[in-house]
């Protein structure tokens, strides 16, 4: 893998030299070179990011999507690659950074050389990129959880939540938005009865899930917005023989939840999807390179099937609602992450 990469790099460098830098301006037809620079190679999550980049490139038509990353996840490795990318005069780089700050000097150098730089997944601090693409925001995540469980329970019944610890910032913010969402009249037959805390421990989460089912014999569903919680809740529902009676959704990794999604214990769950990250990053870079937008606050970018992405304060852009995994697509994603 590494050898092939080095070979590729050498080829690319020679290619750049032989075609001379001056030609670039004149050659309008050559596709835009957009690089997806990830934390490290050989990680299923980032391979999926690369797939998203290729998908976007195919849709856009004028883009060549290049996937790169150091062999170990270090900031130094990424800096080296960015230096060579500056020399090659690529058009744009989207980075999932190994360090929020360490990359800033080299990405500034790249931007001075006319390369558009954005970050995604793991952001670079303000000043080191034009846009930082975040997968989702608290409000969208929280609201979606209620929508997902409502679809599973036919908009009826008591719903319990198995969270992580009681002071977990993420989970608490999401749960707050769940309580907001359920106020909508379409959920009038549904009720969030309790938040139980499984402390991200498999035994405690399991016990809390069993406790919810005992305490509320008519319980219709459980939302568990945490990976250990959803796994333990699924096992508890299965052991209690409540599959089909108690529905389950939450935030979980496809590779970990494949078994329970496929056997129906959890009808659907959500998480941000690396394919969408690569896809959206490529669209944003294309818009920046072609000058459709400058990357200022309030700019709107058309991102194909992901809809319109708006750039907010400090260049933060939100991709959207997390991706929904179900029986039909879980196997495909389980091999990725």
């Amino acid at each position, binding site marked *: 893998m590494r050898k092939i990469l080095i070979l590729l790099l050498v080829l690319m460098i020679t290619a750049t030299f032989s075609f001379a830098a001056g030609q670039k301006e004149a050659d309008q037809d050559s596709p835009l070179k957009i690089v997806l620079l990830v934390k490290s190679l050989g990680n299923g999550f980032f391979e999926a990011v690369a797939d998203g980049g290729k998908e976007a490139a195919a849709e856009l038509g004028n883009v060549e999507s290049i996937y790169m990353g150091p062999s170990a996840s270090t900031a130094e490795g990424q800096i080296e690659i960015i230096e060579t990318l500056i020399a090659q005069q690529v058009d744009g780089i989207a980075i999932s950074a190994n360090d929020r700050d360490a990359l800033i000097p080299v990405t500034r150098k790249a931007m001075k050389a006319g390369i558009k730089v954005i970050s995604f997944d793991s952001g670079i601090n303000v000043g080191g990129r034009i846009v930082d693409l975040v997968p989702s925001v608290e409000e969208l995540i929280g609201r979606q959880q209620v929508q997902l469980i409502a679809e599973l329970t036919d908009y009826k019944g008591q719903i319990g939540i198995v969270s992580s610890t009681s002071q977990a910032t993420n989970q608490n913010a999401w749960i707050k938005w769940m309580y907001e969402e359920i106020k909508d009249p379409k959920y009038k037959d549904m009720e969030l009865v309790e938040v*139980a805390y499984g402390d991200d421990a498999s*035994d405690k989460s399991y016990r809390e899930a069993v406790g919810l089912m005992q305490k509320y014999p008519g319980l219709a569903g459980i939302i568990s917005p945490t990976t*250990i919680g959803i796994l333990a809740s699924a*096992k508890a529902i299965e052991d209690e023989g409540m599959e089909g009676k108690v529905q389950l959704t939450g935030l979980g990794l496809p590779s*970990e939840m494949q078994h329970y999604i*496929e056997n129906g214990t959890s009808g659907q769950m959500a998480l941000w999807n690396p394919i969408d990250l690569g896809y959206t990053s490529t669209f944003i870079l294309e818009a920046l390179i072609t000058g459709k937008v400058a990357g200022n606050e309030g700019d709107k970018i058309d991102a194909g099937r992901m809809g319109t992405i708006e750039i907010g304060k400090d260049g933060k852009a939100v991709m959207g609602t997390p991706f929904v995994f179900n029986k039909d697509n879980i196997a495909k994603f389980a091999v990725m992450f």
Partner: protein
Amino acid sequence: MREFFKKRETTLLILIAVMLLLIVSQAPSFVSPENILRIINDTSILIMVSIGQFMVILTGGIDLSVASIIGFSGMAASMMNQYFPEMPIVFILFAGVGIGTVLGLFNGILIAYGKVPPIITTLGTMSIFRGFTFVLSKGQWVTAHEMTESYMHIPHGTFLGVSSLIWVGVVVSLVMYYFMKYVKTGREIYAIGGNKVAALFVGVKENKINIIVYSLVGMLSGLAGVMWTARYAAAVNETAIGFELFTVAACVLGGVNIAGGSGGVAGVILGALFLGILTNALPVVHLSPFYQLGLQGVVILGAMIVNSVSEKRNEKKLLNRRLQ
């Protein structure tokens, strides 16, 4: 009969009964036979490891690494099952137990020959073994679809209507009860903790006892690791974090002297059951989770105070009788 009521185990039994009555007033279905079985099933792992912890505490030591041993051996066993699905389950079970024993032996050697105090040794190995778990798994979990059905079935199989996890707990309890009461080595463990100097004079080998005790607790933790990961159908890197404190609490509740020398397997089992009932009841009782946490501490402390006060009174009575 009088003897019976003086025993610490009896006080604990009464406390458990009182607690059950209080819970039933809140949630009547809690004492249904199937729920009682569920609680015993849930507590079996705690019982096994607590008995191991009990032996260590008897010698005046403590083992803080039990939870990490559970985590490591559970992860190792799960990964064996993942990568070699055709490997017989019995072999994986023995491998898990063996790995636990080796880790325990490592503790024992450090304590016996390195002369490092047990609390320091096991505090160190607690992090080392947990670190190994991350290294071994590269941070990845082993979950249900990567495990074979037969692996996940280990704790769930039933015999005479009772789960195999409970049977394992019962067998471990009986064997260890016999071992501590009637086997010479078991008595030597008591001797070392009760009066070390006297024990050494009658020829008890302290190093040998330490190595045996820490290997045994490692072995039981290894067994618990396989059971744990199979039961929850998930081997995560954080498996059982914080569990060591529950094993110590079960021992102390069960009347084991934290300074060593006294206590019994029966008491430890009751202590573990007390904690098991409490942790299973809390999610069912209508009470905010924040009060639950506080309540858990209050109940454990309260039980300990009642327990030790009643013991003191008995000792005083005995003393008075002797003086008369």
